[in-house]
């Protein structure tokens, strides 16, 4: 009866209050108090709750109060209780049923568990217990769902139970779980055999399923960076990513620039991809030594450029978890002004729960051996072979003398003739067992007796040594539910192939994350690197660069003669330079001409993720990228470029601060899934460079500014600020159609006020058509991608300070001079528009995968320097001009060719082709040409309709039939103007990557190559002109050669050239510096890039020890090269000019070694 009365109460949760307000009811209940017993016995099977209530009411004085809904609840329960009090009984009932019970005196109110308890909570992990962020959790019946957060947690509103929950994640088997009642779901997803996709890192560090992307992206694992570890980790990207090209310098530090999809900018130093480390964009500037050109230092410097490293080179590959390459502007649109050249996103390792102590130790030893040398001749010795250095053509009796008998040698004038020891050429006499007066290292002059005329065949090779690099890394990691941490310490010591050069680096890396509360997670990354070098080699072609010496060394000169460096009793004053005053001592280049480096670099960020609501998350991040670089350059007395020594000290402090926020909103509808991001960034960039130098040293060998005969200082400081605001909306429809829309606005301090703000949008879409069209059993996945994006920027940061007039420094005290570059108050942002389509096609359970992209990028309004006639008052002006189009195709074909219990073979083929075209230049471009770079005999020139990477220079003058025209003296004519020689970029690039696994062994093999592309070789010009390459042996018997070509007759017809030239003149006139055509070569090559063989000890073996993992591997890099390029390496170019590394212009190349290494990795 009473229970019926209570049925009228509709709002059970109010009932307690009503009880208090209505004393009548409680009085009413108290009538039954006497019936109360302390112990209850229940043995109930398959009864409804109401029936259970009635049983209890019958045994006790307690009354249950509930509403009608409970009477309709048909759920049946079993309960077995003996001799328990009412509290225990109610507790058990609470556990069983979705209701709560409140006891007040003798009344028990029944109500539904509180509303939040209708929220289903859970966690999704993989089989290794690693949380899966972004997994989809869906209520099957309603289609309502959510995704898991960064810890794999989710919560989902459920209207009633039972409910069927579907949990899915790309690459994992989907699970269906039926829940009768609410409980915390702990879901472990199993990896699907048919792995279609993976989570990849996209712009701003947002993790996405690859399936959902509408643009080309490629991930490179840590393993492929460290399996065959090079000095600079980015070297390991070669051949593995279609569309990716690397410009490198060689040398111990080996700075590199990564170029994606061709050169879009006519400013050759503005084509490198953006580098992002842990979500933070890094300006990859290249602070060199001051010399602006690889050819004789350039106009403003006597020195030779030195590669002191750039930001990429410093990174420690052991700390890199993965590298994600975002190839086009569409992928990098969220990076706005920095995204035009694509982006390389580096994620460093974070800690995770590990077996054992979580310690990993790895040790790597690598040796470098030079295997490829220019084809030097060692048949003929020093001598200019012309003019008065040639004995008369007839003897005293008037009989002709054979050419080779007319040649003689004499170091210093002697009875044999005038001195020929000053010549840098090797057109002298043949090594034929004869004796001449030569240099004597004991006498430091002409030998007392004639010495055997002989070649020293290793007098270049012996200079170099075997390079050795040792790397040790210890990493400790661990983690739990609340957080994780990883600390890593790496030490690298490199002894490069040039004596007394190399570097040492200590890297410390710390990555920690912690969940501070249910809703807040913090993560910090700190990375410190100290790189030091006692000496780094000078690059390029200059008297005191080693590349210069390797050219100028003559076949008859013993390298050891140079070894003492200084003449007897003339330490630090008089250098051993027995031949030409232009040739500096090579051992001085190693031990006296010093380029030292001490760099402290710090990169770090602090990142907080706050869950504002189940669907709204806020990320706040602050980051710093900072380095302090101290560079010292010491130049002793008596070298060609500095008679009385020189000392330069350079300090660069750079600091780049980024402050970001990113708000993420996720909402799941029945068929739609929406994610919206809104972010902002503030960049503060500071670059402070101070150079102080001493010209002339009062005391030789003392390198400091106090000792300077005259000292100078200069400052180069730069500040940039950029504010950005961006939004990203991802729309997913039913798991097969994905659309991203982005928008970004930048405010850039570099531009004039009226143009500071600019906006760029992008859209991209992925359509998994295999989900809706039946493509047959064999096709496991098929997706079409399409994207359109616009990004813009203001070019390189060094373009700052171009919007008003400044007067610059002069060496004269109290002086300043007018600028040479005209300021521009109308600079506008550059615009790059990109369109891309792609296909992702996978067959046979994804064992065969084809990824295809075609793209077109058009860059216009480029900010570049255009020459003005000096009569206008200025020599150049920064303008917006030029329109460059790059079109290309990229193919990635990978297959699991074989797979069995013990053996597997994965193979990947990458192929890409890019074609650049200059659509227009500034209307004022002289002759429709824009010179982008000039070094030695080569120019990179943009011409309308031509390639943006075209090599120009003078060429042989030819008639209509292509024959070389000679003058009547037998000399080949050259064009007056620069003409097109070829494109420095290859026609295509390909890579062939293979991974074999047999039981515990694995074998990796990477072969890659380029087809096409011209390279101008200054080294070839010089070696040929000096008669030092084997091809110059032609004509040595007679001393004459006739150039193959024609002479123009007075009537305009042509007849064959028959006029001979003496060989020295022949090579001199056919291969002069200015003849770009004659010294340019096909840059095609095939390289055996990487081989590595590893062995992992099995579990059974490890079980007996404390180790959890043990792996040994050996590897080789650049083991073989097939190329027509006559010098060391067709890829490494050296610094051509300024801050740009251009592969088409070789100006003094250094040897590029093959590398052999051994790796040991232990975990415990």
């Amino acid at each position, binding site marked *: 009866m009473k229970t019926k009365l209570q049925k009228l109460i509709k709002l059970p949760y109010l009932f307690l209050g009503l009880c208090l307000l209505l004393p009548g009811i409680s009085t009413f209940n108290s009538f039954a108090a006497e019936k109360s017993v302390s112990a209850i016995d229940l043995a109930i099977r398959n009864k409804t709750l109401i029936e259970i209530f009635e049983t209890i009411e019958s045994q006790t004085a307690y009354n249950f109060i509930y509403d009608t809904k409970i009477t309709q609840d048909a759920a049946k329960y079993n309960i077995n209780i003996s001799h328990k009090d009412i509290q225990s009984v109610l507790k058990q009932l609470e556990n069983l049923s979705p209701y709560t019970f409140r006891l007040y005196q003798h009344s028990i109110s029944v109500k539904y568990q509180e509303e939040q308890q209708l929220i289903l909570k859970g966690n999704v992990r993989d089989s290794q217990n690693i949380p899966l962020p972004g997994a989809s959790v869906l209520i099957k019946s309603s289609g309502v769902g959510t995704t898991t957060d960064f810890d794999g947690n989710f919560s989902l509103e459920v209207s009633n139970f039972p409910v069927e929950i579907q949990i899915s994640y790309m690459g994992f088997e989907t699970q269906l779980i039926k829940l009768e009642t609410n409980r915390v779901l702990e879901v472990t997803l199993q990896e699907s055999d048919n792995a279609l996709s993976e989570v990849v890192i996209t712009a701003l560090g947002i993790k996405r399923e690859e399936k959902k992307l509408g643009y080309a992206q490629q991930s490179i694992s840590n393993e492929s960076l460290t399996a065959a570890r090079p000095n600079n980790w980015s070297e390991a990207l070669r051949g593995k990513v279609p569309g990716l090209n690397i410009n490198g310098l060689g040398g111990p530090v080996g700075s590199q620039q990564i170029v994606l999809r061709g050169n879009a900018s006519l400013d050759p130093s503005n084509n490198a991809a953006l580098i992002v480390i842990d979500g933070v964009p890094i300006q990859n500037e290249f602070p060199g030594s001051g010399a602006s050109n690889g050819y004789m230092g350039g106009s403003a410097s006597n020195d030779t450029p030195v590669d002191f490293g750039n930001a990429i080179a410093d990174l420690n590959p052991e700390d890199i978890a993965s590298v994600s390459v975002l190839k086009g502007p569409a992928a990098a649109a969220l990076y706005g002004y920095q995204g035009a050249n694509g982006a390389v996103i580096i994620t460093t390792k974070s800690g995770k729960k590990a077996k054992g102590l979580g310690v990993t130790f790895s040790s790597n030893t690598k040796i470098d051996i030079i295997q490829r040398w220019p084809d030097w001749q060692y048949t003929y010795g020093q001598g200019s072979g012309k*003019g*008065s250095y040639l*004995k008369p053509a007839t003897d005293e009796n008037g009989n002709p003398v054979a050419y080779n008998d007319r040649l003689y040698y004499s170091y210093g*004038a002697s009875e044999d003739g*005038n001195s020929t020891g000053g010549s*840098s*050429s090797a057109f002298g006499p043949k090594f034929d067992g004869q004796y001449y007066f030569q240099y004597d290292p004991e006498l430091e002059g002409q030998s007392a007796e004639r010495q055997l005329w002989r070649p020293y065949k290793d007098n270049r090779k012996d200079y170099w040594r075997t390079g050795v690099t040792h790397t040790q890394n210890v990493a400790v990691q661990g983690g739990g539910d609340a957080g994780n941490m990883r600390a890593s310490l790496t030490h690298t010591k490199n002894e490069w192939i040039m004596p007394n050069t190399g570097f040492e680096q200590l890297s410390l890396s710390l990555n920690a994350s912690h969940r501070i509360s249910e809703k807040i997670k913090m993560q910090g990354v700190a990375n410190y690197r100290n790189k030091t070098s006692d000496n780094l080699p000078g690059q390029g072609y200059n008297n005191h660069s080693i590349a210069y010496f390797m050219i100028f060394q003559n076949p008859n000169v013993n390298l050891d003669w140079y070894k003492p460096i200084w003449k007897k009793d003339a330490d630090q004053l008089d250098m051993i330079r027995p031949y*030409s005053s*232009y040739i500096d001592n090579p051992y001085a280049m190693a031990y006296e001409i010093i380029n030292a480096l001490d760099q402290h670099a710090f990169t770090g960020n602090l990142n907080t993720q706050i869950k504002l609501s189940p669907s*709204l998350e806020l990320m706040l991040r602050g980051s710093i990228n900072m380095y302090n670089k101290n560079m010292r350059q010491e130049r002793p007395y008596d070298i060609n*470029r500095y008679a009385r020594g020189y000392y330069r000290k350079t300090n660069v402090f750079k600091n780049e601060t980024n402050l970001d926020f990113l*708000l993420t*909103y996720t909402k799941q509808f029945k068929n739609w899934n929406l994610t919206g991001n*809104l972010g*902002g960034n503030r960049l503060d960039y500071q670059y402070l460079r101070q150079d102080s130098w001493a010209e002339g040293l009062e005391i030789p060998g003392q390198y400091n500014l106090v000792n300077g005969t005259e000292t*100078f200082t200069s*400052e180069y*400081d730069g*500040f*940039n*600020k950029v*504010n950005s*605001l961006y939004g990203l909306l991802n729309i997913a429809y039913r798991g097969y159609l994905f659309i991203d829309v982005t928008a970004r606005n930048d*405010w850039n*301090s*570099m531009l004039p*006020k009226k143009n*500071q703000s600019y906006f760029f949008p992008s859209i991209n879409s992925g359509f998994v058509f295999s989900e809706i069209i039946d493509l047959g059993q064999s096709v496991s996945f098929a997706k079409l991608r399409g994207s359109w994006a616009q990004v813009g920027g203001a070019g390189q940061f060094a373009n*700052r*300070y171009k919007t*008003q*007039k*400044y*007067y610059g*420094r*002069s*060496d*004269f*005290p*109290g*002086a*300043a*001079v*007018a600028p*040479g570059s*005209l300021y521009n108050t109308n600079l506008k942002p550059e615009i790059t528009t990109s369109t891309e389509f792609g296909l992702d096609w996978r067959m046979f359970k994804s064992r065969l995968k084809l990824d295809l992209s075609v793209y077109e990028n058009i860059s216009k309004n480029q900010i570049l320097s255009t020459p003005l*006639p*000096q*009569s*206008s*008052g*200025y*020599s150049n*002006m920064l303008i917006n001009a030029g329109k460059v189009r790059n079109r290309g195709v990229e193919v990635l074909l990978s297959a699991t060719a074989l797979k069995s219990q013990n053996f597997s073979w994965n193979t990947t083929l990458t192929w890409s082709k890019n074609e650049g075209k200059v659509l227009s230049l500034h209307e004022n471009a002289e002759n429709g040409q824009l010179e982008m770079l000039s070094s030695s005999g080569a120019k990179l020139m943009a011409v309308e309709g031509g390639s943006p990477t075209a090599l120009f220079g003078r060429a042989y003058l030819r008639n209509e039939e292509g024959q070389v025209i000679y003058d009547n*003296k037998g000399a080949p004519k050259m064009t*007056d*103007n620069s003409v097109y020689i070829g494109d420095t970029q290859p026609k295509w690039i390909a890579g062939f990557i293979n991974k074999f696994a047999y039981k515990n062994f694995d074998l990796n093999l990477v072969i890659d190559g380029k087809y096409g592309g011209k390279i101008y070789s200054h080294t070839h010009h010089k070696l040929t002109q000096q008669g030092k390459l084997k091809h110059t042996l032609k004509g040595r018997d007679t001393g004459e050669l006739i150039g193959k070509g024609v002479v123009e007759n007075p009537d305009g017809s042509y007849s064959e050239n028959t006029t001979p030239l003496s060989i020295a*003149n022949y090579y*001199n006139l056919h291969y002069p*510096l200015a003849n770009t055509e004659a010294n340019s070569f096909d840059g095609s090559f095939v390289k055996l890039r990487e081989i590595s063989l590893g062995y992992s000890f099995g579990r059974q073996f490890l079980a007996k020890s404390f180790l959890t993992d043990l792996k040994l591997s050996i590897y080789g890099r650049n083991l073989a090269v097939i190329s027509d390029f006559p010098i060391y390496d067709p890829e490494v170019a050296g610094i051509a000019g300024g801050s740009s590394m251009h592969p088409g212009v070789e100006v003094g190349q250094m040897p590029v070694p093959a590398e052999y290494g051994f790796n040991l990795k232990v975990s415990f």
Partner: protein
Amino acid sequence: MRKFILITLTVIGLNACTKDFEETNTDPNKLTEITAGSVLNPVLYELAKRNAYTVRNLSAPMMQMFIQTDDYINAPFLYSFTQNVGGSMWNAYYKQINNLNEMEQAAIREGLPNYEAIALSLKAYTYSLLTDTFGDVPMVEAGQAENGVFYPSFTPQKEIYEQIFKDLSYANSLYDPESPMPYVPDILFNNDVLHWQKFTNSLHLRLLLRVSNRPELQAFDKLKQMLNDPVQYPVFESNEEQAVIEITGIPPLLSPWDRPQDFGVFRYYTAFFIDRLNEWDDPRRAIFASEAKGLNNENYGYIGEPIDYLNESLADSIATASGVQKFIS
């Protein structure tokens, strides 16, 4: 709603943050204004340097005075000129004209007539070098890039000379020994106003002499007028007063080439030049030239290099012709 507030706040915040952009984009290492004395020394040095280059690389070999037979890049002088042979000269002179325009404006702004007069005189000198080399060159529209004139038209040589004379006369009238030259001492005349005035007038005389064959410019009348009035037109009176920049070897007054002694490296007097001096028994030979050397370094007297030395070499007994003395002063 919260989101919209956040967006609004951020947009406002970011806009506010661009306020300091102007300061950020101001070069901290350079000047936005110069004084009337700022450019003078660099201009004097650069003009002299260019003149020295021209003699060494161009005038001497072209006029068959001395030639370069060989050097470390094995690029002997073969009369093979490229189209841009005069390019560096043109660029260097116009660059200094631009500096001199700046100097002139600064002098007017600061009310320092002596600097204005020096700027006008040096400009006249530079234009005379340009027009003597190239003929018609831009003058009226030159140096106007800031006003959008990127390709100035060429001014006829006659008008250039008329302007030069006008400027020199005006410059002479500007000199005022009472007015100070407050900036760093100049490397030519050490801020001596009278000396500068003499320079202006001596230059004026030289250029009048140069156009003396053109009656329409009435050069002789003007010459006469100037020489008859030494009070109004003071001129150089001795060798000591001539305009010579001394290369002290103390930076920045360094030799235009890397090392002073490199002036004569691989450079030999031509037969044409030495033969004339031999003919005249010129006493300056010993200062200009070294003696030709034999195979054993023996002296052969003054012998010039045949201009077509590739085909007609010296006698076999002679190793090198008379070389250019390594030091000229």
